[in-house]
């Protein structure tokens, strides 16, 4: 389950080289600031704006995005860190009146502003907001307004009067000097209009970007918004670059004739007395019974839970840990938070049948969470780092993510809505940012490049694994990457990366509040009906200390639940996640063989190869196994050192700095648990902080550079810094370099230790199931599809290899799901492509059937469903093979399900005089049809039919690989199951092929790949000539491909041997086929392999 760490927000962190916070108030305050959260309008983010405002001498800065508060938290946190006063407001674009800037004066006013925006958003489509002056008037108390004049001043005079009538407190009119030629006259006129209405003008520069050199990006986002190219944008663009943050003195100079306009900004800002810090979270109260404090209740629940978890008594170590955690929770007042999560988890458990759930992430570091049933990693068997979960210095609420069975998560969500009400529970937003590809594509489009060229550039610049190919392609397409126009595109795209693009709904992040949610943050409609989400993302929520809980979906939990149910039903045993027998040696033996198909997380080819080398013998080994086969440790070349140290071939030592630079054990503290090799995400980051002495700001820069895109210049600078400093402090250059490489890999994919621990628990549980109950396990896997790495065909094959009898789909014997029949696995109707659940349910309800016709007349199954069942060869129990059943099913007529019609029809058409003489279907064709309809065949493997030919050519079968010595040449052939080009493998392609006896793993080095790319990427049936390579430590066998052949055409003989070839006669136009209609020879005979790039 590759899980991309989202673009993590960069927080401004004050450092020594920043100007000190302003001590004197500036004469002018900028209030008309548009940030990128007025989507596709502003071109500078909060940090850029704040870092520009600070040296210019501002002491406060406003934010007024269009009908949204989505960007205010960022402005709040950046301004606060820099020492500026953030003014929180928005720009209201109304349906029936000129726009207004609206700033919250106090908490109540903020609440009304938020409610007003929610009102406008709930009535409109996703992303829109519809408000009228009347709506604003109803919410005006506690909000300070500034009227934003229209371009047409003749009508503005009357409009202003309307605004004044509706909003008596309105007394400011915005005026801007924008170098339009008529600014003097215009402001003068505005001044008079304002005075006549008892208002005063207020200066603003209508800021859209922090500095003039951002104008190109501003123009580009305008073009993206209006869907035009830069060449045709014309007057949609502003004529100059003046809408930037100007120094206060400059504004005073421009408004020299109207000093009151400058003074007004100061007065306006001083009247605002609200900070987002006031939105302090109040936990929902209903989680605590009357008469107890939350802390008391939490302690009761914890000790009760502890008694259940450890019926034989709590060890001293655990006791100490629990007391320590409870004390810290009390000190930080987080008890209600734990109770809220506990409540949700307890609800899931209380259902019949209960929903499986498990906390992931750092919550696994908490013994209290274990006692409350939130996590399932026993603190008695591992060393917990509670401080990683809750830290006193961070004072942030803990982050508990809980995984639920993916098919039943909706029930949990509905419970949350039901219990806390839709007005108090909401889903967080995910801010979709421009990523390298989308940025290049959109900038390229605006700049007039074709999609093709954009794609070439995108893959060329950002270290795609196809980099070498992309450069070739760029050159082929005639692209000169030094062309100034292309360079400009690149530069603009780089600026655009990381800018917000739109808001979307988070997958499961809930926030819960005590007062109505709309008074805290505006809520808008999602794209789906009946879905609403708030305007802030989880970082914003965290920043303000609002409670959030992630309700996530995990397919493996569904699978495990189904397995537990089957075991209860067929074996009479009850199991739970936490009660599965721990540390069973046979389970580890199985994993050490690499026998892990279907097991959570460790079923990929890379993991399967690692298992026999790592030889896990205890739970913590699984934690490492989960974390080590990730791009981070692989790129950092940390895998081999770890394996060597683990097997005792290398001594465990810790690099240390020169004595004058620090403690010799500074790394031992970080790396002790992993034998001196950094494996977990936080270890690598901690090295940057402790060993390279990065400041938190530098560390953030590093994180951003890694997470967002691999802009080469940026990374090189950071690399120089980190490696340089470590070497300076006495570390080995090579070690420093490897640490950096590892961080580079972690940028995109990496596991923190606690997360790996949560996952490792599921690895263990699923392995145990596979080992003890292989039939139930395969059945659970098939019934939870789609999930995991393998297709049903491989799951079935693996089950059969483990001695499970698998039976075919049949109309009289199969349920919708796969089932167990006296220990055998009966495939379910769900395996049939295109069969609807509803039709299957009808079918099952009125069994048994004796003829095809009965399915329709008595079962009421739709004819097209019957035909699919026939094509899938599911009528064997009534003695009909596929062809006969299909022929019968074709004769059925779709008719209303009434007896009258049924009989009349039968009379009409009568019986056929002559019975049809259909040719018998050969077995090979049956197999092909099985693959086409249920993607697997129990009758035979397609290779069986080709074996004679291959055997004659001295090709060997997969089961003979074991008996072939290292370095010997061989030839073999098989169906391609999976192709992988992992980014960490430097262009090597891994292919898994399958024949009737088993699978073989091919390694294709880049030189072979370059020469035979087409075959590598395209063949469904592949022949390989290569050399056997055995790993002496693990007995893992690879076939290193020397030469490959595409034998896909051989498959055609299986199904079309009866057909004479008549094509390609006549005028010799080559192998042309009718374009409208795919020739059936093109039809997929065997489903495509699964490819991972």
């Amino acid at each position, binding site marked *: 389950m590759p899980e991309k760490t989202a673009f993590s927000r960069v927080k401004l962190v004050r450092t020594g080289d920043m100007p000190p916070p302003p001590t004197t108030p500036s004469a002018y305050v900028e209030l008309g600031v548009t940030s990128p959260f007025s989507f596709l309008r502003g071109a500078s983010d909060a940090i850029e704006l704040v870092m520009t405002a600070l040296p210019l001498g501002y002491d406060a800065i406003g934010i007024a995005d269009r009908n949204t508060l989505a960007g205010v938290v960022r402005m709040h946190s950046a301004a606060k860190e820099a020492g500026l006063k953030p003014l929180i407001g928005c720009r209201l674009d109304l349906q029936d009146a000129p726009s207004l800037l609206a700033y919250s004066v106090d908490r109540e006013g903020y609440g009304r502003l938020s409610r007003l925006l929610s009102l406008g958003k709930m009535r409109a489509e996703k992303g829109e907001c519809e408000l009228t002056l009347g709506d604003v008037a109803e919410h005006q108390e506690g909000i300070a307004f500034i009227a934003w004049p*229209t*371009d047409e001043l003749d009508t503005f005079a009357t409009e202003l009067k309307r605004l004044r009538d509706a909003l008596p407190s309105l007394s400011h009119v915005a005026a801007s000097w924008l*170098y*339009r*030629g008529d600014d003097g006259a215009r402001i003068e006129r505005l001044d008079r209009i304002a005075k006549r209405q008892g208002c005063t003008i207020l200066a603003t520069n209508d800021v859209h970007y922090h500095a003039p050199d951002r*104008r*190109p990006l501003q*123009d580009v986002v305008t073009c993206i918004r*209006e869907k*035009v190219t*830069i*060449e045709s944008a*014309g*007057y*949609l663009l502003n*004529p100059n*670059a*003046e809408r930037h943050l100007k120094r206060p003195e400059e504004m005073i100079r421009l408004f020299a004739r109207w000093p009151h306009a400058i003074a007004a900004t100061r007065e306006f800002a001083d009247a605002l007395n609200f900070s987002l810090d006031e939105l302090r979270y109040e936990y929902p109260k209903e989680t605590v019974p009357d008469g107890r404090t939350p802390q008391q209740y939490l302690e009761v629940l914890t000790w009760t839970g502890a008694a259940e978890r450890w019926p034989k008594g709590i060890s001293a170590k655990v006791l100490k840990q629990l007391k320590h955690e409870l004390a810290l929770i009390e000190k930080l007042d987080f008890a209600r938070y734990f109770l809220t999560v506990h409540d949700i988890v307890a609800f899931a458990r209380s259902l019949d049948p209960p929903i499986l759930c498990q906390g992931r992430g750092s919550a696994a570091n908490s013994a209290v969470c274990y006692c409350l049933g939130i996590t399932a990693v026993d603190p008695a068997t591992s060393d917990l780092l509670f401080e990683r979960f809750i830290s006193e210095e961070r004072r942030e609420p803990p982050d508990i993510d809980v995984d639920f069975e993916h098919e039943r998560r909706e029930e949990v969500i509905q419970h949350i809505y039901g219990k806390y009400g839709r007005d108090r529970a909401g889903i967080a937003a995910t801010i979709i940012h421009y990523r390298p590809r989308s940025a290049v594509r959109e900038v390229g489009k605006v*700049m007039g490049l*074709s*999609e*093709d060229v954009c794609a070439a550039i995108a893959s060329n610049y950002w270290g795609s694994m*196809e980099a070498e*190919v992309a450069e*070739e*392609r760029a050159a082929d*397409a005639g692209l000169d990457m030094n062309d100034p126009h292309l360079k400009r595109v690149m530069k603009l795209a780089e600026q655009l990366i990381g800018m917000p693009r739109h808001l979307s709904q988070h997958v499961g992040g809930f926030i819960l509040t005590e007062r109505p949610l709309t008074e805290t943050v505006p809520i808008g409609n999602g794209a789906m009906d009946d879905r609403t989400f708030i305007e802030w993302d989880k970082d914003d929520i965290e920043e303000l200390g609002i409670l959030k809980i992630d309700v996530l979906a995990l397919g493996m939990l569904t699978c495990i639940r189904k397995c537990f149910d089957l075991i209860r039903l067929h074996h009479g045993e009850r199991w739970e996640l936490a009660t599965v027998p721990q540390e069973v040696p046979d389970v580890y033996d199985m994993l050490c063989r690499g026998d892990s198909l279907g097991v959570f997380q460790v079923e990929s080819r890379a993991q399967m190869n690692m298992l026999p080398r790592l030889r896990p013998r205890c739970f913590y080994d699984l934690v490492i196994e989960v974390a080590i086969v990730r791009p981070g440790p692989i790129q950092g070349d940390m895998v081999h050192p770890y394996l060597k140290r683990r097997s005792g071939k290398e001594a465990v030592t810790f690099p240390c700095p020169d004595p004058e630079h620090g403690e010799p054990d500074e790394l031992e503290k970080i790396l002790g648990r992993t034998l001196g090799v950094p494996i977990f995400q936080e270890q690598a980051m901690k090295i940057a902080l402790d060993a390279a002495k990065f400041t938190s700001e530098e560390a953030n820069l590093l994180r951003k550079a890694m997470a967002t895109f691999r802009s080469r210049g940026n990374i090189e600078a950071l690399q120089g810094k980190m490696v340089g400093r470590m070497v300076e402090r006495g570390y080995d250059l090579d070690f420093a370099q490897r640490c950096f490489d590892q961080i580079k890999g972690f940028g995109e994919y990496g596991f923190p230790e606690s997360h790996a621990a949560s996952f490792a628990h599921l690895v263990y549980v699923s392995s145990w199931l596979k080992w003890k109950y292989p039939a139930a396990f395969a059945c659970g896997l098939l019934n939870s599809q789609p999930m995991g790495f393998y297709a049903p065909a491989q799951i079935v094959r693996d089950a059969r290899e483990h001695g499970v009898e698998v039976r075919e789909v049949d109309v009289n014997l199969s349920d919708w799901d796969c089932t167990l029949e006296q220990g055998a696995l009966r495939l379910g109707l769900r395996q049939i492509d295109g069969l609807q659940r509803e039709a299957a349910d009808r079918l099952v309800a009125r069994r048994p059937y004796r003829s095809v016709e009965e399915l329709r007349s008595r079962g009421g199954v739709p004819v097209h469903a019957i035909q699919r069942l026939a*094509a899938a060869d599911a009528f064997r129990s009534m003695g009909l093979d*596929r*062809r006969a059943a*299909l022929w019968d099913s*074709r004769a059925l*007529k779709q008719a209303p399900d009434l007896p009258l019609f049924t009989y009349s029809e039968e009379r009409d058409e009568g019986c*056929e*005089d002559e019975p*049809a003489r*259909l040719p018998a*279907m050969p077995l090979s064709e049956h197999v092909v*049809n099985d693959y086409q309809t249920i993607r697997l065949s129990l009758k035979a493997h397609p290779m069986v039919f080709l074996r004679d030919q291959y055997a004659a050519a001295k090709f060997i079968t997969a089961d003979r690989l074991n008996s072939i010595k290292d370095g010997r040449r061989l030839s073999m052939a098989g169906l391609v199951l999976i192709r992988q080009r992992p980014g960490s493998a430097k262009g090597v392609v891994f292919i898994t092929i399958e024949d009737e006896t088993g699978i073989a793993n091919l390694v294709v080095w880049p030189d072979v790949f370059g020469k035979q*790319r*087409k075959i590598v*990427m*395209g063949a469904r049936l592949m022949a390989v000539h290569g050399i056997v390579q055995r790993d002496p430590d693990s007995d893992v066998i690879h076939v290193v491909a020397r030469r490959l052949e595409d034998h896909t055409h051989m498959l055609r003989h299986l199904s*079309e041997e*009866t*057909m004479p070839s*008549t094509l*390609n006669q*006549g*005028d010799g*136009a*080559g192998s*042309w086929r009718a*374009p*409208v*209609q*795919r*020739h*059936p020879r093109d*039809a997929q005979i065997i489903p495509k392999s699964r490819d991972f790039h």
Partner: protein
Amino acid sequence: MPRLAIERWAKSSDYPPDDPIVLTVEGAHGLLIHAVTKAAAERGARPGARLTDARALDPALLAVPADPQGDGALVEGLARWASRWSPLVEVDGNGLRLDVTGVAHLFGGEAELVRDIKRRFAWIGFTARVAIAPTAAAAWALSHFGGDELEPLHVSALRLDPDTVRTLERLGLKTVGALMDMPRLALARRFRGAEDVVDALDRMTGRKAEPLTAVPIDPPPRALIKQEEPATHPEAASQALERLVPPLVRELEERKLGARRLSLTGYRVDGSVAVASVATAIPSREPKHLQRLLADKAGELNPEFGFDAFALTADWTEELGAAQESLVEEPSGERELARLIDRLTVKLGPRRVRRPQPQESHLPERASGWTSAVSSLRAKRSNPVLDRHVAPLLATTERPQRLLDRPEAIDVIYATPEGVPRRFVWRRAVHDIARVEGPERIAPEWWRQPSTARLRDYYRVEDQAGRRYWIFREGVIGDGRGGLPNWYIHGLFG
């Protein structure tokens, strides 16, 4: 014509023919391959595949957008051309169906006819696969699947949808012959509606008729007169014109068309022709106007040995409904203007008659361009986005009536760095500035101008004598794009 798209593309491009090029169309999930060159086909590219998939196999493929509309137009054109073999020609996808009943003997029999068709298609550069059969469905099957017998052909030769074909294959009914051997009733019961196999068989075997609908071919409106004797006097063409216009206008009226281009053709006795053509700015069938346009040019046609026939053809027409402008027949401004442009263009040549064409640019010299008057009149565009945003902006910016072709350098006294101008010298005359408004700041168009281009601050100034000028300073001090800024005059007001 299996390779029509790629062959048409190859004719009009200058890529080397051996390049692996694929033509692409937009699909629901990205670009789809529409047609491929031979080189691309050899590298594994196939029509119908996704471009990204094909690129995964071979990243060297070059993708070029296809033009299905253009291809369609070409097929239509070829259909007309194919009427040389048969009066009944029908377009069928990228192919043509000709009804050659009773025609073949004109070309020396069916075999000769096939050879002739192939040869002529080859001459014009298109691959054609040709088959003659008693039914259209059979001809389609043979031309697409080869051979000269129907029975061995695969069932997809019946043009059934892919699902039906697959069902037939599963039933073991893989060839047309196998299908013919089945009882009709059994088949009819099992394949109905859109998958009617019996119907497809009947159309192939001729049990069921399948009529052709031929491409309609409208000749352009044309009037023709024949001289009883060859006319050799110079006014012959002009006189003929007077007699040709009324019938042509009648025909235009009947077909509700207006002429945009007219040709007067004189056929000389020696077999040569003389042609005079004119174009109009808007479609017209006004007799006097048309006659006046052609009159001069008609006079220039040289009879040499004499004309024995004249034709007046409206080669390019557009739809034009009946219109009455007012009761008293006073022509509207637009029409009058159009007529004036037509007459001026005929007299002076199309390049000399131009009209201003506003362009959307903040740079004044780019904003006011010129285009040919004849072609631009109809091409007014309306852009709702633009109207919403721009109309107010344009209302507030004032531009001078006279813009100099090229800004002229002037000397200006002004308060540095960005103060207003006080006095300027232009063409050696000193102007003391009495009033000034501005500046209007116009930044370079960064996407096309070099990064050293400087911004301009425009001022509207009035000198002591009340004359108004539009001057600008190029650059500001310290912008890092040059030394001291220069001043220019760019326009005159009033």
